[in-house]
């Protein structure tokens, strides 16, 4: 099967509006991993990340004309929708506390379909950082897994606006400019938030006590 031609976002959207499923599939393949991982890192829950991803693209399918290529990229547009959905969810259900307790979805081994790559990469080997890993192959990996688990938990305790810059600039490896564009704030703000967030993370990882969820959202 031939590779699909790489078309611009606007053209793909026009074709999608005309009922072209392949065009939508191309848009989805191109943009959904970043949206999904953003939601996953922001919530710490794979199910919620699935739901948010679905809601984001449902919004795009139902209101494609809301996207204006002159105002930014399609990826940025979708990130904005994802942020809005996440905020609504947090407002509606404060019980969704990310990355807490033993239910760490990010560390769970999942099965089937698109999760195969994830499972194959060994993510499932390092669960929630509590030492109950199933396929540990050595002490170094155990230590690393524990470190990663603590890091996930520490990130989850960051205030939302700090967590966003950590996810975007560190986990999604965006530049300050890209993150600023997505978040709609100056580059200096992104930089200062990241500076503060990293300081908090270092502090939490240095502290052997379990991280507590932050109660204050602010600079």
């Amino acid at each position, binding site marked *: 099967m031939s590779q699909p031609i790489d078309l611009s976002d606007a053209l793909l959207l026009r074709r*999608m*509006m*005309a*009922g072209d*499923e392949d065009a*939508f*599939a191309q848009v*989805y393949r191109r943009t*959904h*991993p970043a949206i*999904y*991982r953003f939601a*996953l*890192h922001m919530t710490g829950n*794979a199910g919620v*990340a*699935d739901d948010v*991803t*679905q809601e984001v*693209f*449902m919004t795009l*399918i*139902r209101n494609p004309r809301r996207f204006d290529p002159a105002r930014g990229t399609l990826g940025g547009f979708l990130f904005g929708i994802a942020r809005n959905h996440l905020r609504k969810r947090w407002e509606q259900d404060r019980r969704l506390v990310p990355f807490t307790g033993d239910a760490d979805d*990010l560390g769970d081994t999942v099965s*089937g*379909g*698109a*999760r195969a*790559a*994830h499972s194959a*990469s*060994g*993510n499932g080997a390092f669960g929630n950082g509590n030492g109950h890993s199933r396929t540990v192959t050595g002490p170094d990996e155990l230590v*690393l897994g524990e*470190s*990663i688990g603590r*890091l*996930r938990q520490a990130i989850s305790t960051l205030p939302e606006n700090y967590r966003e810059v*950590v996810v975007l600039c*560190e*986990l*999604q*490896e965006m*530049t*300050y400019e890209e993150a600023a564009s997505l978040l709609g704030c100056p580059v200096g703000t992104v*930089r200062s938030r*990241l*500076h503060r967030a*990293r300081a908090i*993370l*270092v502090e939490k*990882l*240095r502290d052997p006590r379990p991280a507590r969820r932050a109660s204050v959202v602010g600079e």
Partner: protein
Amino acid sequence: MNEERTSMDCAQFGEILQDLDRPGTEGFALRRSALAHAESCGRCALRMIEAESLDFALRTLAAREAERQAHPRVARALVEEVRVQSRSASRHGVRWQLAALGVAAALLLVLGYSLRHRFPPAAGSDAARDSAANHTSSPIAAPVAPVPDSNEDQSADSQSNDSDDETAFVSLPYADDPNALDGGAVVRVLLTRPALASLGLPVTDLGSADRIPADIVLSEDGAPQAIRLVSQASLDE
């Protein structure tokens, strides 16, 4: 270089620490100076180690999550939604087309109605007669007289009363019952000789190109029922 090394203090080091491995930033440009400062400052060296550990952990976490994607059911649900939206859009399109056709038909009706009222047919006028004479492709011109009574003979008699130069009406082969001619009309037309012959009239000299005046009896639905010849003399009168 030495100047740069000595100029960097702990506060500046702390400011750029997060950017040492971030290309395109000021911290990346001052990386060598920062490393030099860390060599001379134990506290900043410790901060750098902690920052590098955090960077390593973050990169490891990012690498582990890099391949994760949404569950396939999400894609299935979205494709189904695309189909639903597509069907909905096509239904809207059909509705718009029907509406446009309706509007176009209404406009045509209004236009036709207004034209009919603006240019009413001039019954019995010279213009209508000229028009009938020039319109050779259609044997029917403006109506000039009401249909005579019930049967063909009576109509022929009544017409013959108008002018002795006119022949009797001859019923056309596919004509309906002459009793059904109530409400029809008689129109005067100019026909070629072959056309007259095709209607069953006794015509000679079929090769001639001249046109012969004739009266045609039309039924109420416009179908020709009978025909008679009219002499040129009666026309001149």
